[in-house]
């Protein structure tokens, strides 16, 4: 399973690589990282054929996670990527906007990695 993590905090990369080291080692999951919405779109354009699950932060400078979500759901139809939003602000408005734009799931920070693992396995 290919997973793209989008977050403007660079240490997220190390954190995910360590949190999922077993899954990465046994080849169950593969992680790529983008540090902005723009970078994420670049990645998707280059890797269109790869089945990708996207985990995106909402609050990023420049293109926000919600804008990225909108782009993805409009432009990338086949295969339709699964998009999970992660935000520090677990408010109703963010939640309903994400759902309206087609987010497949909605997580709030701090991320519960046990729960995330289960969700990724089911996705």
């Amino acid at each position, binding site marked *: 399973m290919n997973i793209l993590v989008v977050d403007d905090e660079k240490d997220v990369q190390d954190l995910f690589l360590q949190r999922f080291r077993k899954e990465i080692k046994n080849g169950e999951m593969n992680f790529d990282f983008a540090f902005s919405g723009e970078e994420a779109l670049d990645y998707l354009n280059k890797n269109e054929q790869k089945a990708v699950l996207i985990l995106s932060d909402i609050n990023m400078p420049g293109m926000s996670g919600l804008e990225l979500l909108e782009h993805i759901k409009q432009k990338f139809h086949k295969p339709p990527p699964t998009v999970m939003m992660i935000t520090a602000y677990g408010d109703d408005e963010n939640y309903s906007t994400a759902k309206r734009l087609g987010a497949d799931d909605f997580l709030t920070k701090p*991320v519960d990695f046990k729960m995330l693992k289960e969700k990724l396995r089911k996705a």
Partner: protein
Amino acid sequence: MNQNLQTILDFIQQSEHLSEEEKTALTKAAKEADRALTISEFKLERTEKVKRTTAILLEETIEELEQKRKSIEETNDALSKSLEELKATQAQLIQSEKMASLGELTAGIAHEIQNPLNFVNNFSEVSRELLEEMQEELDAGNLEDVREIASDVIQNLEKINHHGKRADGIVKGMLQHSRKNTGEREATDINVLVDEYLRLAYHGLRAKDKSFNATLETDYDNSIGKIEIVPQDIGRVVLNLITNAFYAAPLPPEGGFKNQSQPHKPTVWISTKKNPPSGGRGAWLMISVKDNGPGIPKKIMDKIFQPFFTTKPTGQGTGLGLSLSYDIVKAHGGELKVETKEGKGTEFIISIPIKK
């Protein structure tokens, strides 16, 4: 007739040494003297009357003046009391403006602290897992794996330390913003100060208004070094200008956006530089905050630095931001200038002399 004159007249009449002619002349003289005396007495009496009237008038005037003096004194007391009240109100307003801007920061601060804390928690949890794994590898004798895990843990501890310090710095910055201003200049890294307030303002707005978004372009001159300023004060000015720029950047120009095919991309540019770039004596620090909002209309340009002037809806702006900013920059011996083009955007430039 006056008694003394009468005696003189009688004496003249009965005198045998005087001729008739002399008697007539002397009698005439005495009678004229009497008339003059009568007139003098009359005049004297009149003068006395005038004097009395004047005295009464004077007394009345003095009384009136005294009353006026008393009422002026009362007015003075009332005025100085009002002045004291005004001064207290002004101090309160400045404090509440400070608190309002702290309020603007609160959401940003919460967000900014949440991120490093997440890392502290996650990296410490994952490090414990790694160490458990290390024990297993030690038992199995896989030294290569043990070394690898150990270096990961070392790296993680460095990250925990880094993010802990980051949270610490944010809280310190917040305290510095809200504490009573000592008004003392400190050697301050202006780029760090500006960037800190930029992040806080940005995340603060994002937290309050979910739809808010803007592109940030920063250009910091790393050769500036530390500059003697009152950091809380300059921080407030920077925060105020950035908040204004974020407010203005997404707004449409008068008449709305013309080019529908190209969506407006709200952008805020922040830069620091030395002028002249070589520095030296008489060099200035310049901080520019620019937006691509609708610009400031000509008719309100001369009002923007006035206290209580705001274009924001009632309750949203104190109208003190720019006026206080102006005073703060002035107290640093500097200038706060604005350049604006309707439909294009606005640039505020803080310039402060660098004292070595």
